């Protein structure tokens, strides 16, 4: 019986050991195969395809020659009789949203009054900036936001890729646009519609966001797993769902509050992983933090903009210089830039609320935060998010201690626009006159920072940030977020030091004890041998 038990136990231990070793080996040596793109092809093949309910080419209202874009709008409104009300209630139209901001109360913030550290602000530059306003004819801050004829339906709904807003034309389409063709081909907005503004913010492709690049119109799933043409090939509005022309999702360079956001969880749920430990990370770590390892994957994005370098002239004329990738690194009208590609994001705590520097605000700290994203480890609704931090310097009023808005764009020399005359003082006076704020005439340049949450260019899961990129002693991705204990990065140095010393002392003590035992037994053996020898010598009694 005993023998059988012993044998069973031995077999059991053997099996358990072999299993454990096998499991460890599988874990160490197993690597997942590359993603099978056939799956994506099948998804495309069997996906429900949207069929437009109306063929706009058949409508008599659109079958005519349009002289002005406003006529197109009128034609649209002849069928969609109430839609302008929805559009005119949107921030795309109003360039502001009303929201409650802690410490400030109910405020209206948006492109109208928010400043940034790229082209600084729209005030006094409306004619140029309104290339990205969904309306026609915004030439100044006295724009009539109640005139429905000026709503630009086409910029969002043109499916012919024909439509194009003209440069510095106050939001009017370029003269080459065939309005009939555009009007007859309207449909649900596509990537190229949204991108015509959102890719080009700041005066060029991918300048501002870093994760919104014209390349995303047709990219691989490695660049953007959602929008990739060989992947899901999704449109922007698939996630930025829209009700009554109120598009979900917002940008925290202009929005302060935490409402109507477009989030990953809306599709993926908040427990998307099979491994519980990853799902639990979701209480403090945003999806984006791990799933967007780098941004600006195709074209470079602007990381720094120094206005203080602007105004250098060659032979009295403005000039431009380019870096090795063909990006401007100097422009007389704008200053010097630093561009970067494949950028690792910075990481901050964010709870969904933000505050923007509004024209007229007093500077509280240097560098001036153009927008402050609120959040901390202790805040339950905060998560770690990836951000692009755009730094720079720009002009401010030394006496009133606030950033000033210069008039940059002008048609002719001599109307005090900086881009024509290169005179800061006149440009500031002209820019600030419209806002009604006093200026001192004493200006200097001050450091600025602006925070851009990175939400797009999600990588395939195989390329997600690995555990050890954060859980590491030195130079981890979260090295700058020090207000919490991160396993693998943090430790109690006193305890570790004490532990190491105690462990070494224990080993020394054990070796010392062992040595003494050995020595004493050697000595004792000698002693005993001596006695034995002594006994041998003497004859026994």
């Amino acid at each position: 019986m005993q023998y059988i038990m012993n044998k069973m136990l031995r077999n059991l231990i053997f099996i358990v050991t072999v299993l454990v070793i096998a499991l460890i080996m599988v874990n160490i040596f197993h690597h997942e195969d590359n993603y099978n793109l056939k799956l994506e092809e099948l998804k495309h093949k069997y996906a429900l395809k949207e069929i437009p309910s109306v063929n706009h080419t058949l409508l008599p209202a659109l079958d005519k020659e349009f002289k002005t874009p406003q006529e197109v709008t009128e034609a649209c409104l002849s069928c969609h009789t109430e839609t302008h009300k929805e559009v005119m209630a949107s921030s795309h139209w109003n360039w502001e949203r009303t929201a409650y901001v802690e410490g400030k109360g109910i405020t209206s913030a948006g492109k109208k009054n928010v400043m940034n550290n790229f082209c600084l602000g729209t005030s006094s530059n409306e004619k140029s900036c309104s290339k990205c306003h969904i309306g026609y004819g915004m030439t100044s801050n006295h724009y009539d936001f109640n005139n429905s004829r000026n709503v630009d339906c086409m910029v969002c709904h043109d499916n012919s890729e024909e439509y194009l807003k003209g440069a510095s034309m106050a939001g009017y389409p370029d003269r080459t646009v065939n309005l009939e063709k555009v009007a007859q081909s309207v449909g649900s907005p596509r990537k190229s519609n949204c991108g015509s503004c959102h890719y080009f913010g700041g005066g060029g492709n991918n300048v501002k966001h870093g994760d919104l690049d014209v390349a995303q119109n047709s990219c691989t799933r490695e660049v953007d797993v959602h929008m990739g043409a060989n992947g899901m090939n999704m449109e922007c509005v698939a996630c930025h769902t829209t009700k009554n022309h109120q598009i979900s999702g917002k940008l925290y360079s202009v929005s302060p509050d935490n409402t109507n956001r477009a989030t990953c969880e809306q599709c993926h749920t908040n427990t998307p992983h099979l491994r519980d430990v990853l799902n639990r990370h979701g209480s403090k770590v945003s999806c984006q933090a791990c799933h967007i390892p780098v941004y600006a994957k195709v074209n470079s994005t602007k990381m720094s903009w120094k206005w203080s370098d602007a105004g250098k002239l060659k032979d009295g004329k403005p000039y431009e210089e380019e870096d090795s990738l063909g990006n401007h690194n100097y422009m007389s009208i704008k200053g010097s830039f630093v561009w970067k590609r494949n950028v690792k994001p910075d990481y901050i705590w964010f709870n969904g609320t933000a505050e923007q520097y509004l024209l007229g605000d007093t500077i509280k700290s240097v560098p001036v935060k153009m927008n402050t994203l609120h959040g901390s480890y202790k805040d339950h609704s905060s998560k770690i998010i990836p951000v692009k931090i755009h730094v720079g310097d720009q002009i401010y009023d030394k006496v009133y201690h606030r950033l000033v808005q210069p008039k940059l764009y002008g048609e002719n020399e001599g109307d005090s626009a900086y881009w024509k005359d290169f005179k800061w003082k006149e440009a500031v006076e002209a820019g600030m006159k419209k806002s009604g704020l006093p200026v001192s005439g004493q200006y200097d340049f001050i450091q600025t920072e602006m925070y851009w949450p990175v939400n797009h260019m999600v990588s395939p899961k195989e390329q997600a940030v690995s555990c050890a990129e954060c859980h590491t002693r030195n130079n981890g991705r979260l090295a700058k977020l020090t207000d919490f204990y991160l396993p693998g990065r943090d430790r109690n140095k006193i305890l570790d030091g004490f532990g190491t010393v105690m462990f070494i002392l224990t080993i020394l003590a054990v070796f010392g004890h062992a040595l003494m035992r050995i020595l004493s037994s050697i000595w004792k053996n000698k002693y005993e041998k001596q006695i034995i020898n002594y006994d041998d010598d003497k004859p026994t009694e």
Partner: protein
Amino acid sequence: MRKVYIYKGFERFWHWSQASLIMFLALTGFEVHGSYSIFGFEKAAEFHRTASWLLIGLIIFAIFWHITTGEWRQYIPTTKQLKDQVIFYISGIFKGEHHPTQKTELSKLNPLQRLVYLGFKIILIPITVGSGIFYMLYKTFDQNNLIVIEDYPLASIAFWHTLGAILLMIFLVVHVYMTTTGKTPTSNINAMITGYEELEDEDNTIENNNNQTNETK
């Protein structure tokens, strides 16, 4: 002298699987702690978690075994001859003296072992395993409505867990060394492997023991 079946099958299985689990947990745990890199953080954390569940399961079985067999009585602390035992390790052992206490099936542990193992069982293991469970289940309150240990900072949990781990490693070194202080350097380890150990006859008192020693001299 008589050969006695002193360590039962489960006891040996428990001892060796606990020993290997603790060593594996230390190996992976100090990697998670950032002390070195062998498996990589991700694998180390995953192995650590799996091994910890195995250890918890084993401990539950061991507690059941201790209670049902009455073996828990082995750990009732006593101060009787505790001093003798300490003095033996400090000096007697070098003079070739015999252990001051006698090992029997009913009293496998000497007074010093009783105290140390009891401390191991009711202080060291609970600190390490308890803090480990808190560490493993550490969550914060959020939209997922996960259960909270929110106001107890992870740094403190990690402190106790690391402290437990360090003490366990010190215990391990001393424990392994102490096994060599038996009749021969390997007799204790052999006993824990085979279950059999040669013990003095039970009716031999310590006086007899001492007399024998004197006689042999």
